[in-house]
Each structure stands twice: as C-alpha cells, then as structure tokens.
C-alpha cells in the first residue's frame, strides 16, 4: 500500500516594528537578557496593553498580499495557558475574529508547475520569551529571558494543501520571499524572526480522508524542516504499515539526532479558554484605508518575474532567479537604469553575486561591497570595447572583494584592451608568420583551427585583444573574407 503525505504549515513571523506589539519597549534581537522589558511585558500587576499601529499595518499588508478576506472589525482574544515564558500566563492573540481569512498563495515548483495553497487565517499576537535549560543544585531548571516577550508575532495558518516535500519547500521559499518583499520582517530563521511549524499526516494514496495530524516544532531552517518532514513521513508510514495508529500530538525535532520526539502530554489538555480581550477595544478596518495599503503594496515576485521576461527579454528561469529576492531584483533594475545591459547583469548576478549571499550568516545583497554603480560602470566599459568578457569577470571578482570601482581596478592593473588596431594587426601578422602550418590548414578549409589562431593572438596581447576583432582580421588576411 502506498501512502502520501498531507502537509500544512503554521508560519510565525516576527514583524519589523521597532517597539513591541502591546507596549513601547524596544523589540530587538540580541540584547542582554531581561534588558528590553517594562512593567507591561513583564506582566506586572495593574499593567495594560496598548496596540502598536505599525504591527497592525504590517499584518494587514500580509493579509492583502495573501488575498485574504479582511473583516470590517477585528478583535483580540486571550489564549489562556501556563508557561514560564508567558508572563501573564495568557497570550493576547486572535481566535474569533482574526484580521485575515480564506486567503491563497501561489507556489512555483521547479519545472514551472504552479499550485495554489490555501491560507486558513492570519492573526496578530504577542510572542513569548525564551527559555534556556540548565541544571541547578542537581535539578533541572529553566532560565527565563523576557526580551522577546510581547514582540509582534504574525501567525499564518495554511490549509493542509501540500502533497510532497517539493511542494513544502516551494511553499516555504515562496512565503519567505513574499514576506521579505513586503518588508514586514527580516525573516532571519537563524534569529528566529521566521519560524515554520510543520503539520503532517499520512494517508493511503487515493483516500479522501486525512490521516492523524502530527505537529512538529523546533525546526530552525528550511533544510531542517525538510529533514523533519522526511523523518515524520517515514515514521508515520512505518506505524501505518504495521497496522498501528498514529497519535495526534506535538513532536519536537532534534536536529542533532535527526529525529522527532514526543513532547510528553502537557498537563491539562489544550483548553485555552479563549475569550475576548477586555483591555483592547476592537479595530475597525476602514475599506478606504485598505485600498491605500493595497495600492502601496510592492510588485510581488511572480508579477515581477513576468515583467522581467517581457521588459528585459530574459528567459523565464533567469527572471525567476532574479525576482526571488526583492533586494536582488531592485539591484538588477537599478543597474539597468544606470546603463542598459540586462542580459549582462543577469548573468553576472546569477553567476557571481548570488553565491555570495545567504549562508550561515544570512548575508544580504546590501551587505556586499558592490553596488549597482559598480556593475553599471563595468557594463559600460565592456560595451565600449575597452575590455572583453574575460577581463570583465576578473574585474567583477576583484570588485566584489575590495569594493573598488571597475575603472579604478582596470587602470591600476592595466587591464585595458589593446584598442590600437595597428598593434592588434601587428600581433595577427606575427602569428600568421609564426604559425604557418595551422594557417595553411585554415586556408584549406579546416574551420576549427581559427580558434587556435585566435588564442595565439590573445596570448601575444596578454588577453587584451578583442577576440571578435582578431577573428575578423585572421579571416580577412588568411581567407580574404570580408566581415
């Protein structure tokens, strides 16, 4: 019997507001523990929440971009449970009237297949603090840091519409790209500002009903999610093949061991006793205001990809790569604005620049020493014929390292092409004399030999001749062909 997975995600996004969602304390990653706190986010007696306008606005942008139904009135509710990273022992969240419902996101699979994934709801809530596990006097303890407590958290709940690890990966990539496009979060998974919680169940192929859903938490990167997904699919399949039942539960991914572990059943089943938050009045979402927000939404990835194909004549795949990250797409377009050479930029970015990005420290294009000015200048110099493609690549690499402008590098290293046609002709003539044999072969019709001869001229010129010009001269002089 074959089994297929049914996959959904709960995406947690830490919004890029400067202050927390319900108090005006700094919302920043990396501070000394318990130094970005105030009486409100510490949950001291007598304190009250006040909603951050920007957190609401950023959330609505996401709801719009995900094509959600946005209600006239949205409200907050209390989710009641006890945990030491939750100072009030309730989380202000949204249960009954979230700010977005019934949305959809299109994901693109490698190979070009598109799929629509439903978004069940989007809601704004406050994040919890952090726990560090330790031992004290021989007993296990938790150390509590409340810096992160009450920072703005947007939760995006998808429908369980994905049916394969490829679709899951495409979903995560698309979601991350979308959120970065909207500039609502820096989406740094290493820092926890973007977290994916995986929901996966297995069912016999062809069956309509879903199997038992398992939630997997503690996955810190897209790759880890895929590893956890793979593990869970196998684990659940094994159980079902043996005729057993999968337990509905939450499991933690242990990346070191490469397995998921059951969280021992929490005391008191999940009864969150949601009720409307009495300390926060409802929010009326004005339709006109929504329209202004919608108009201000940036052009999103897919629209941009299509436009790049049309406007710049790029192949679909290349356009897709460039459009994947807004910052990269903007960089590319700024280059073309400075000097029109889209195909050149596309090639350079894809081959040389993108490999510098991402990685462990999640490097961004803005972190690089190189700017559109650099590339535009280089393209201009290339177009003028002063250098050739090979030299351009060398200069680009150097520029990436040092941040120096291409002109400076070319001058300092004397990389300019030999433009003096007299000098090139001199080299050509020398080669014709020195390579009599191959010249004879070419004369007699062996076309391939031309490359060899061009190479010899390039050698003499130390790579600074234009290969096209050299080719033309050789053809003319040896075969008498006119360009």
């Amino acid at each position, binding site marked *: 019997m074959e089994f297929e997975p049914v996959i959904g995600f709960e995406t947690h996004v830490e919004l890029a507001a400067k202050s927390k969602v319900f108090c005006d304390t700094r919302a920043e990653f990396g501070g000394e523990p318990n130094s970005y706190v105030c009486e409100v986010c510490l949950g001291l007696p007598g304190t009250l929440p006040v909603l951050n306008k920007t957190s609401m606005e950023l959330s609505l942008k996401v709801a719009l971009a995900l094509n959600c139904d946005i209600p006239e009135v949205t409200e907050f509710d209390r989710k009641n449970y006890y945990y030491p990273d939750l100072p009030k022992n309730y989380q202000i969240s949204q249960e009954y009237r979230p700010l977005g419902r019934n949305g959809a996101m299109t994901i693109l699979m490698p190979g070009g297949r598109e799929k629509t994934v439903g978004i069940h709801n989007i809601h704004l809530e406050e994040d919890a603090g952090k726990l560090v596990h330790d031992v004290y006097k021989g007993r296990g303890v938790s150390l509590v840091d*409340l810096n992160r407590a009450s920072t703005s958290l947007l939760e995006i709940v998808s429908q369980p519409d994905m049916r394969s690890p490829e679709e899951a990966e495409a979903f995560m990539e698309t979601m991350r790209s979308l959120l970065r496009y909207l500039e609502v979060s820096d989406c740094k998974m290493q820092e926890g500002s973007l977290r994916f919680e995986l929901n996966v169940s297995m069912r016999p192929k062809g069956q309509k009903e879903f199997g038992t859903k398992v939630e997997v938490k503690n996955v810190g990167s897209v790759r880890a999610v895929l590893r956890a997904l793979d593990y869970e699919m196998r684990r659940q399949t094994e159980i079902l093949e043996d005729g057993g039942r999968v337990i509905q539960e939450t499991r933690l991914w242990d990346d070191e061991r490469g397995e998921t572990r059951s969280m021992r059943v929490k005391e008191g089943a999940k009864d969150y006793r949601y009720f409307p938050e009495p300390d926060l009045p409802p929010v009326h979402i004005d339709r006109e205001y929504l329209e202004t927000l919608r108009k201000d939404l940036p052009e999103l990835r897919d629209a941009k990809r299509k436009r790049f194909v049309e406007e710049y004549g790029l192949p679909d795949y290349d356009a897709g790569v460039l459009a994947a990250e807004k910052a990269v797409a903007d960089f590319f377009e700024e280059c073309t604005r400075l000097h029109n050479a889209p195909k050149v930029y596309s090639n350079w970015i894809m081959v040389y620049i993108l490999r510098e990005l991402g990685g462990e420290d999640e490097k961004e294009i803005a972190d690089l020493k190189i700017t559109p000015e650099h590339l535009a200048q280089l393209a201009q110099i290339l177009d003028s014929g002063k250098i050739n493609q090979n030299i351009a690549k060398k200069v680009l690499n150097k520029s990436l390292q040092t941040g120096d402008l291409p002109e400076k590098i070319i001058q300092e290293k004397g990389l300019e092409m030999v433009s003096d046609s007299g000098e090139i002709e001199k080299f050509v003539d020398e080669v014709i004399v020195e390579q009599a044999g191959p010249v004879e072969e070419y004369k007699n019709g062996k076309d391939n030999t031309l490359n060899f001869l061009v190479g010899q001229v390039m050698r003499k010129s130390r790579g600074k001749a234009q290969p096209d010009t050299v080719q033309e001269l050789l053809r003319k002089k040896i075969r008498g062909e006119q360009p």
Partner: protein
Amino acid sequence: MSITADEVRHIALLSRLELSDDEVELYTGHLAEVLKYVEKLKELDVDDVEPTSHAIPMFNVMREDEVMPSLPQEDALENAPDRADPYFRVPKTTE
C-alpha cells in the same frame, strides 16, 4: 447539570491550584450552589442578542511605533523569588 468533584479537580489543575480532598468537597458544594443559581439565565431567550465585551463602545485605540526606555535590568529582577542574574530561574518545564 451539576458540577462534580472530578470536574473540580480538573478545574483546579487547569488553574494551577492544588486542593486537598476536603477542599475538593467544600468547593464542589460551593460551586454547585452558585451554578445552580446561575441556571436562571437560561430562562431568557438571548439568541438574537449581541454579546457585550466592552461596556462603553470604543474603537481603534492604537499608539505610534515609538521606543521608550526599558526598565533597568535590576528593577525587572528585583521582585523575583529566584534569580540567576540576568535570568529568572524556575524549575524545569515538563517537556
């Protein structure tokens, strides 16, 4: 429908209280009495009535996204029953 001792034990757990057997019995009696009194609300037909969450209607109360100074770390930790500076320390969670 009257509340049972088992339900009271469950509620005590949900609200992180610990009751002796005597207390369970006592509170079960008290709660049952109150819940019985409250049954009178069922006399009313409220299907078409909107619930009131906020006594005085108010909407869209928000503040600008501005950062104000935090509490000094010492003030934050000052009332803590157990601290391992700069953290609060608690017994382990149950996962």
